[in-house]
């Protein structure tokens, strides 16, 4: 067995999946609301239970979102010259020929992705609570409704990208979120600065 390094803690993994599953559930039920998809509704035994599910899963999502802040926020706010170069080569996703600069624990795409999730997650959560709990105020209701849906559009676009990149586009990434570990060899290639920082390189 190749040597493994710990990239994600157990808690982080747990939280990621809480966030991911709740988010996907919310999106599915959200879609059902938006387009009156009765077949989805019937999976939940009608729109009424689906609404309850959506609201309470929303709570899980929100709590989980708060936890991610401790895990990713700091890191996601730091960028260096390599990160700038990373953008120039589009992360190497458009061509396998270009040279991708050395990366830390997360590449700037991931960092930005996180910032997006944090921001729009906050918006969708706040607006969601607005719709849920501030029913007597028309301005809040209408604003929340708008914001909720603007954020939803973001989720519709970003979440599939993230899933694709963490699975098919980058084989070997998924196991990180399953075991938290990554083979040292692979880590050296992908996250050289991080490995260096850990003193393993």
């Amino acid at each position, binding site marked *: 067995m190749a040597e493994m390094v710990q990239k994600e803690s157990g808690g982080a993994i747990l939280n990621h999946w809480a966030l991911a599953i709740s988010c996907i559930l919310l999106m599915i039920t959200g879609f059902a609301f938006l387009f009156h*998809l009765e077949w989805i509704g019937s999976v939940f035994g009608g729109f009424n239970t689906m609404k309850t599910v959506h609201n309470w899963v929303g709570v899980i999502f929100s709590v989980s979102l708060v936890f991610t802040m401790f895990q990713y926020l700091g890191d996601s706010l730091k960028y260096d010259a390599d990160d700038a170069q990373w953008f120039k080569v589009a992360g190497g996703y458009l061509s396998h020929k270009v040279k991708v600069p050395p990366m830390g624990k997360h590449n700037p795409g991931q960092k930005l992705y996180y910032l997006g999730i944090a921001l729009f997650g906050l918006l969708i959560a706040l607006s969601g609570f607005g719709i849920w709990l501030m029913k007597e105020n028309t301005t809040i209701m209408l604003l929340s409704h708008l914001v909720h849906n603007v954020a939803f559009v973001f989720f519709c676009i970003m979440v*599939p990208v993230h899933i694709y990149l963490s699975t098919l586009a980058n084989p070997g990434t998924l196991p990180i979120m399953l075991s938290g570990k990554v083979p040292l060899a692979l880590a050296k290639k992908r996250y050289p600065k991080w490995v260096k920082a850990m003193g393993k390189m």
Partner: protein
Amino acid sequence: MANNTKNRKAILVTPELCIGCRACQVSCKSWNQLPGIKTHNSGTYQNPPDLSNTAFNLINFIEMPSQENPARWLFVSRRCMHCDDAGCMKICPAAGAIYRTPEGAVAFDSDKCVACKLCVNACPFDVPRYNDQGKMSKCHLCFDRIGSGMEPACTKTCPTGALKYGDRDELVKTAKVDGFSTIYGENDLGGLGAVYAFKEAPKLYGMKENPVIPSSVIFWHKYLKPLSWIGLGGVVAAAAIHYLAIGPHKDEEV
């Protein structure tokens, strides 16, 4: 919407003929078996003060100054307008909670309503109301009566013809022939299912001048909604193309 059809039904309200007897309020309660509301007199005949989840229609008593007389006293019937372009229907997230009947009425199904209370905010006329469980209710044009060939309870009861029910085109035509210069709701919001015949400016009768669905709702409906599935679909497609055309990262390349 597909409801400007020949057989669209409507209520024609003619405040000029209304005598403020409020038989319409009672008949609605009676037909719908709505409980009485504990009210108090607040210095006006109007009661309950506003529409409620157990008061689907209401006579507004409007007192205003007059040259000729001590006052002018107008009686204006209020209820759901059964908009062709109905804000409530647009915004409602629950399938089947608000629906259009073949006659063009905007009816509701409490069982399907998820009590989100979004609809009143999208209604240009501040109509939907909610019960303790948050379930919406409002005038449904007596969908159950008109669906079996009867007329709504309120129009049936109205002694003077201030409320009339019939084919929408027909009602609008006769109101014009009868000399009513303003047919409120003829074209607003795709044409209302409760049209008003006025000889004076609708504003006088407390009617909103240009009723519109809130622009955010329109924006959301027109752009955001499609964008969410176009976005999702687009991204999934792009990922597929990427996978096939460029392919995943190979660790060897790094």
